[in-house]
C-alpha cells in the first residue's frame, strides 16, 4: 500500500523536475515543477474527439494502458513492505501487464489507419521486444542470487558485501535506467520534443488521442517513470526501517529525474536504425550480470 502512495506522490513532480532540469541546463527560465500536472488536469477537463475510422479499440485503449500501469505499480514493494499484490514470480506479471498495456496502445495506433502511427507502433514494438530479454535476464540473475522469486523478497534479501556485488549493482542500475528510457521512449532512443512524424516513436502513436485520453497517456508516462524509479530505489533499500526508506525513495526519484533531465539535455538521439543494437547491448550487459551472479554463488570460479 505504502509503495503505491509514494509512487503516485513521486509521479506528481517527476516530469516537472525533468523539464525544470532541462530548462536550467539550457539557460531558460522554464515552466514550474507542477506545469506537466496542470497540463494533465486541463486535459482531464476536456472531452475527446474520435475519428470516424476508429473503432471501440481506440476508445478503450488509453484506459487499459493506464490501468496496466497502475496494476504494475501495485506489484512494486518498498524495501521490506510488500506491494498490494505480491506473489511468487510477480516480476513476470509486472513485465507482461505492462506488455498488455503496450499491446493495446499499439493496436489503437494501428486502428487510426494513419501510416505514421503504424510506423511508430512498429518501432515501439521492436524496441520493447529488444528491451524485454534485458529485464528478464536481470531479474533472473537476482532471483538466482537471492533464491526468491517475488519482488519484495528479492529486494529485501539483496545485500552487498564483496567487490563484485558493487559492480553488479552499478550495472543493474544502468540497465534499469536504460530500460526506463526505452519503455518511456525518452531521449537516447526517442526524442519527445521532435516535430517530425517520421522520426517519432511514441509521440506519433498518440497523435490522434485528445482530451481525457491524452491526459491519461501523458500522466501514464509520469507514473511509469516513478514506477521504474521506485524499482531502482528498491535496489538500494534492503531492509532498512521506514524512516530511512521514505527519504531514500524520494531522494532516489529526485536524483533519477535530474539524471534523466541531464541526459536529455546533453545527448543527441541515436540514429533510428542504430537503436536496436544499443538496446540489445542491454541484454548483453545483463548477461554479464548473470555471469557475475554465478561468480558470487561460487557456481563458477
Amino acid at each position, binding site marked *: 500500500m505504502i509503495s503505491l502512495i509514494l509512487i503516485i506522490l513521486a509521479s506528481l513532480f517527476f516530469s516537472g523536475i525533468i523539464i525544470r532540469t532541462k530548462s536550467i541546463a539550457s539557460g531558460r527560465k522554464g515552466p514550474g515543477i507542477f506545469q506537466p500536472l496542470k497540463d494533465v488536469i486541463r486535459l482531464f477537463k476536456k472531452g475527446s474527439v474520435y475519428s470516424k475510422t476508429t473503432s471501440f479499440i481506440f476508445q478503450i485503449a488509453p484506459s487499459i494502458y493506464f490501468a496496466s500501469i497502475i496494476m504494475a505499480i501495485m506489484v512494486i514493494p518498498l524495501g521490506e513492505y510488500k506491494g498490494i499484490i505480491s506473489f511468487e514470480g510477480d516480476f513476470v506479471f509486472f513485465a507482461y501487464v505492462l506488455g498488455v498495456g503496450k499491446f493495446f496502445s499499439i493496436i489503437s495506433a494501428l486502428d487510426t489507419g494513419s501510416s505514421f502511427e503504424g510506423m511508430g507502433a512498429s518501432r515501439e514494438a521492436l524496441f520493447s521486444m529488444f528491451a524485454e530479454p534485458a529485464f528478464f535476464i536481470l531479474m533472473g540473475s537476482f532471483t538466482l542470487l537471492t533464491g526468491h522469486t517475488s519482488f519484495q523478497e528479492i529486494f529485501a534479501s539483496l545485500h552487498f558485501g564483496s*567487490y*563484485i556485488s*558493487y*559492480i553488479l549493482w552499478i*550495472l543493474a542500475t544502468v540497465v534499469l535506467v536504460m530500460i526506463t528510457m526505452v519503455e518511456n521512449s525518452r531521449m537516447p532512443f526517442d526524442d519527445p520534443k521532435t516535430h517530425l512524424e517520421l522520426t517519432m516513436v511514441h509521440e506519433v502513436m498518440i497523435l490522434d488521442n485528445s482530451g481525457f485520453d491524452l491526459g491519461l497517456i501523458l500522466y501514464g508516462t509520469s507514473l511509469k517513470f516513478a514506477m521504474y524509479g521506485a524499482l531502482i530505489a528498491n535496489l538500494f533499500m534492503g531492509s532498512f526501517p521506514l524512516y530511512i526508506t521514505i527519504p531514500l525513495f524520494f531522494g532516489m526519484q529526485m536524483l533519477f529525474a535530474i539524471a534523466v533531465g541531464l541526459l536529455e539535455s546533453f545527448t543527441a538521439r541515436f540514429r533510428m536504425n*542504430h537503436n*536496436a*543494437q*544499443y538496446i*540489445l*547491448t542491454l*541484454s*548483453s*550487459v545483463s*548477461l*554479464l550480470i548473470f*555471469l*557475475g551472479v554465478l*561468480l558470487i554463488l561460487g557456481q*563458477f*570460479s
Partner: protein
Amino acid sequence: MTNVLLIIFAITLLYLGIAHRLLTYIKILALQGVLLFGIAFIELIEINAANLTFVLLETIVIKGIAIPLFLNYVMKRNRITRDAEPFLPNFVSLIIITLIIIATFILSNAIDDSRISKIYFVVALSTLFTGLYIIVTRHKIITHVMGYLIIENGVFILSLALGNEMPALVNLGILLDVFASVFLLGIFVNRVGDVLKDVDVDQLKSLKD
C-alpha cells in the same frame, strides 16, 4: 577485485562490437591496457619486483599509452578515414560477440577441471575470438592490427591466470606485443595508406611476386 576488472573488460568487448569510428577503437584499446594494468597489479603482486615492474610498465606504458598514440599518429599520417567500415552491420557484430561470450561460458563449464580459473578463461577466450572476429569482418588493414592487439590482450589475460606459477608465460605474452608492434611499424614505414589508396584489404589480393 580482479573479477570486477574482468567484467569491465568483457563490456569493452561489447562496446567494440557497436563502435563506429576508428578513434573509438583506439580509446577502447587504451582502456583495455589500463584494465590489464589493474589486473596484473593485483594478480602478480607476489612475483619478484623486477619482473613485476617490467610487466606493469609494459601494460600501462606500452598498451595503455604508446600503442594508442602511435595508432592515432599512423592514422593521421596515412590519412586513413575515420570509419571502421565493417562487412557486417554492427547489430550482427553485437549478437555474434554476445554469442561468443555465451559459448566460451558454456565451454568453460563443460571443462571439469578445478585448476583453471574459469572467469579468466571465459574473458581470455572470448577476447581471443572477438579479436579474430574483428579481423575477419573489418575492411581496413589498421583494424586488422587492432584485432591482433585485442587477441594479444586475450593471450595476456590467459597468461595472467597462471602468472604466479609461471612468470615466464607472462613474458611470452609480452613478446607477442613486440610482434604486433612490428606489424604496426610495417604499416607505418611502408605507408600502406598512401601506396594503396583505400587501405582496403581486398586490394592486397593484387599483390603478387
